[in-house]
């Protein structure tokens, strides 16, 4: 229900300038297409101004949906706002605005400001949509994104305020001022105020454990006199490590692999797979870490109706499941859980011994099935990939079972398709898109 109210609220705000014009019964002598162009631009600006709010990591906004959903919504609405604003100049021309509006640079400063804002917005959106194809690293893209975003909003704001007839109406002016303030406040909160606040009480690295040749568990303790934040097993945290030397200081998000039942620390298990994570093994006890958490909704405790669970994990995608299984172990849960855990080889299996112990203790009633794609010749377990046959063989009937999927994107997409082919209803498939 809160989710529905938020979506409805978003829609009302997106069309709020139009509602004001309707309530005040403001007519227009302009051509219809010209008027449509202006309406699209008004809504386009509102959507643009709301963008920083969506990604400000506000708990009340993230809680009903999960951060991955909010991030994807942010991306979709960013593209939509760009299309609305791109359509604005050509529709004005079609509506009688004159071709020079589109082509000429010999125009008042506020028209040029709109053009520059639109150009920046198009570049901004293209960089976001095609960042991977352009070979942009995440950190590079993020820096560009955070520099462009406020510039675009200010340029478009000034353009609309100076150019638009409708912006001469006091209630619309008030709305515009509120939107600008809210937008920039969300940006400042997210990029400046919150990081300063969190940096006052950093967590401490108390242990770094190598799990496999390229996977480490980093254990963090809260600041002196404080306790670890409350979280659900399966959620994730943002961490900025401060490790001295030439080691990079970047914020990244990792799933929490510890359970909230384990007091005094919180841990993340991290695979060395990128420029930054390849340095994770250099993290030492005594280093500090700024932590912002918890986020995400990938947790069995949020679905108390699930009694018969199937966890499908690929590689480092085991971490949320480990957190959940540790939580089940510590709360002596009698839930039935089947874990199909895919890896390349035996050496890549993280938490193997602990999984065996939990399985033997029968709390929860866990069955672990390891699936290796490139095993040694003496491997007697499942070979290949997690597929329909292996799921059916390990799980039996799908009736009444809930499926949790976490792993690399191709595996996740393939498994969801497989589950759908097997007849598992969408409502029984739970997953999280981890790349925000």
């Amino acid at each position, binding site marked *: 229900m809160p989710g529905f109210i938020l*979506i409805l609220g978003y829609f009302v705000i997106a069309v709020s300038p139009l509602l004001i014009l309707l309530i005040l019964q403001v007519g227009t002598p302009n051509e219809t297409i010209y008027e*449509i162009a202006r309406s699209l631009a008004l809504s386009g600006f509102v959507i643009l101004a709301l963008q920083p709010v969506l990604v400000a990591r506000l708990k009340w906004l993230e809680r009903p949906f999960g951060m991955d*959903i909010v991030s994807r919504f942010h991306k979709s609405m960013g593209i939509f706002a760009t299309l609305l604003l791109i359509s604005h100049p050509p529709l004005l021309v079609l509506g009688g605005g004159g071709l020079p509006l589109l082509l000429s640079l010999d125009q008042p400063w506020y028209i040029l400001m709109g053009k520059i804002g639109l150009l920046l917005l198009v570049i901004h959106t293209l960089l976001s949509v095609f960042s991977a194809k352009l070979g942009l690293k995440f950190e590079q893209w993020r820096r560009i994104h955070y520099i462009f975003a406020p510039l675009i909003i200010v340029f478009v704001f000034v353009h609309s305020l100076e150019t638009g007839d409708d912006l001469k109406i006091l209630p619309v002016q008030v709305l515009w001022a509120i939107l600008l303030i809210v937008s920039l406040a969300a940006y400042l909160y997210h990029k400046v105020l919150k990081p300063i606040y969190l940096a006052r009480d950093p967590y401490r690295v108390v242990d770094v454990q190598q799990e496999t040749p390229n996977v480490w568990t980093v254990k963090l303790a809260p600041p002196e006199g404080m306790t670890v934040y409350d979280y659900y097993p399966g959620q994730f945290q943002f961490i900025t490590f401060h490790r001295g030397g030439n080691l990079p200081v970047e914020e990244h998000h990792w799933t929490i692999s510890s359970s909230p039942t384990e007091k005094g620390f919180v841990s993340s298990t991290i695979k060395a797979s990128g420029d930054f994570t390849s340095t994770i093994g250099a993290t030492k006890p005594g280093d500090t870490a700024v932590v912002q958490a918890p986020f995400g909704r990938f947790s069995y405790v949020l679905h108390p109706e699930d009694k018969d669970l199937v966890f499908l994990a690929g590689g480092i995608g085991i971490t949320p499941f480990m957190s959940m299984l540790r939580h089940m172990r510590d709360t002596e849960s009698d839930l039935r859980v089947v874990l199909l855990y895919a890896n390349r080889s035996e050496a890549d299996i993280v938490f193997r011994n602990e999984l065996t112990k939990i399985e033997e203790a029968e709390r929860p009633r866990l069955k672990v099935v390891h699936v290796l794609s490139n095993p040694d010749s003496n491997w007697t377990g499942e070979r290949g990939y997690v597929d329909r046959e292996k799921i059916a063989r390990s799980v039996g009937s799908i009736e009444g079972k809930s499926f949790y999927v976490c792993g690399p994107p191709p595996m996740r997409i393939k498994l969801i398709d497989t589950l759908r082919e097997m007849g598992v209803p969408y409502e029984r498939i739970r997953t999280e898109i981890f790349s925000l």
Partner: protein
Amino acid sequence: MIFRKLRMVTTILIIAIVLSCISVALVRKFVFPTPSHGNEAPAQSQSRVALSNVS
């Protein structure tokens, strides 16, 4: 699954916003009285003036 719902909700939202923009433009053009000289609405065409300057 929630991602399917997200796609659906986003699509509905986008269609609703575009339709609202078009509807409001039509209502303003054909239903509401056009501002006349001497009794202008607060939004008399400044942008028109600006645009005619650049045309």
